[in-house]
């Protein structure tokens, strides 16, 4: 059964098409990687899936609900770790976790238990009563992940979750996610720039470039399709070797600007 169905999804910012008529399905319990160069439309797609941005055209069904018509039901179905900062710096680590737990209706006992487990896993337990503004970038990232895992949703979105994490923490995080996936059948939808990570954990991969899905399948499918030996090479073969810095080309700069405007 598919837990996410996307049909002809399109997002246009003024005259820039960030996401261009994409369709895909994600099965319940699947670990799915959404890859693409900078500015390809990954984050915009996630924003539409998670009710943060309206869509221009097309349809999404998440856990049986339409984010346009039933945003609250959709919000009950997923959890998300954002790509960029989303903590309250004026609160402590513990207060940020509490805030999240209460909003997601995780009962007090379970909340406290998981909080301890997750903060210890992320090596933040000793700093739980410190204000987040005193944390380093890496610590904030770890806290965001710990917070995201506090409730156990049906679908988990992780937008470049491991960016800036050391291999140890990455490893802990993935073990936790794999376990969650196995025990609770949680669907995991993630984006990353580490091809190895996608190869290692994703059962299925879709590659998006300039707003369109240009290939999808298992890591092996993509390698066979491009006659390459690694996902990294397959990715480069499919998306080209040109660097897409987010402030690089004129189009990307425009896209950046529009993304910013829509925030």
């Amino acid at each position, binding site marked *: 059964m598919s837990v996410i169905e996307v049909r002809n999804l399109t997002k246009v910012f003024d005259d820039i098409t960030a996401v261009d008529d994409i369709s895909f399905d994600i099965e319940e319990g699947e670990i799915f990687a959404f890859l693409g160069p900078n500015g390809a439309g990954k984050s915009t797609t996630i*924003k539409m899936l*998670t*009710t*943060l*941005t*309206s869509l221009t055209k097309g349809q999404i069904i998440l856990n049986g609900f339409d984010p346009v018509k039933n945003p*609250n039901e959709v*919000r*009950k179905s*997923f959890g*998300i770790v*954002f790509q*960029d*900062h*989303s*903590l*309250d*710096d*004026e*609160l402590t680590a513990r*207060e940020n976790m*509490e*805030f*999240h737990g*209460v*909003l*997601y*209706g995780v009962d007090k006992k379970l909340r406290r238990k998981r909080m301890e487990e997750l903060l210890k896993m992320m090596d933040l337990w000793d700093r739980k009563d410190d*204000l987040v503004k005193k944390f380093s970038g890496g610590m904030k990232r770890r806290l965001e992940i710990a917070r995201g895992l506090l409730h156990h949703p049906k679908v988990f979105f992780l937008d470049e979750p491991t960016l800036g994490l050391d291999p140890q923490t990455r490893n802990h995080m993935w073990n936790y996610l794999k376990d969650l996936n196995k025990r609770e059948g949680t669907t995991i939808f993630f984006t990353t720039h580490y091809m190895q990570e996608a190869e290692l954990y994703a059962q299925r991969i879709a590659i998006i470039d300039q707003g369109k899905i240009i290939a999808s399948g298992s890591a092996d499918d993509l390698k066979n399709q491009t006659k390459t030996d690694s996902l990294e090479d397959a990715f480069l073969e499919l998306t080209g070797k040109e660097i897409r810095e987010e402030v690089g080309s004129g189009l990307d700069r425009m896209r950046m600007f529009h993304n910013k*405007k*829509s*925030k």
Partner: protein
Amino acid sequence: MSTIYILWIRQVKRYLRSKSRIIGSLMQPILFLIALGYGFGSIYQKAGEGNYIEFLAPGIIGMSIIFTSVFSGMEVIWDRQFGFLKETLVAPVSRFNIMLGRTLGGATVATVQGLVVFIIAIIVGFRFDNFLAVPILVLVMLLTALLFTAIGTIIASFLEDMQGFHLVVSFLIMPLFFLSGALFPFQEAPRAIQIFAMFNPLSYGVDAMRGLLTNQYYFGLGTDLIVLFLVTFVFLSIGSYSFSKIQA
């Protein structure tokens, strides 16, 4: 309920932790009370109007409430810039509850601020005799604070960043404050100012506070309360609507 509470407590904690904001926002009312209160006191007395501090203090409480509450409402902009707004917007909590929790939190902060100014006014020389009116006074303060926090939220959904804040201060807060009867009585003011005052919700808040403390009414307590309740309700509704339309 617990979600409204957690949003409320967050606003209160943020306020209590920002010492510079507390001190900064108390300085202005103190200055107004002392400079205007003592500066114009004798002229006011000579004009046969009585004690100016007695007249002025409720107006200055109103000023501190309008500044604090509009700013609290506009904090949505900061949350958006710092990314925290996304965290609340994807949560499975109705936007109405989020807006309500935030607004109650902002209004609580503004009310507390108003009470602190009230105490400062007493220290500076404000005298009142009607102690029984204090609970109703707090209600009026809270209503006024809710109203302007909601207005701050509405403004926040139109503005991109805090740079627009000065615009809001100059074109909204200042005119509403100066023409609310906070500084001078309306009875002998030009007709145009009297008409403006009728459409200024802060006038009713200031009038109720002044009336409760010193028994000098312009509109009357009944009118004040009815107008405040109605206008607060309307702006809370508009506020929750515009909050529900915010995209992150």
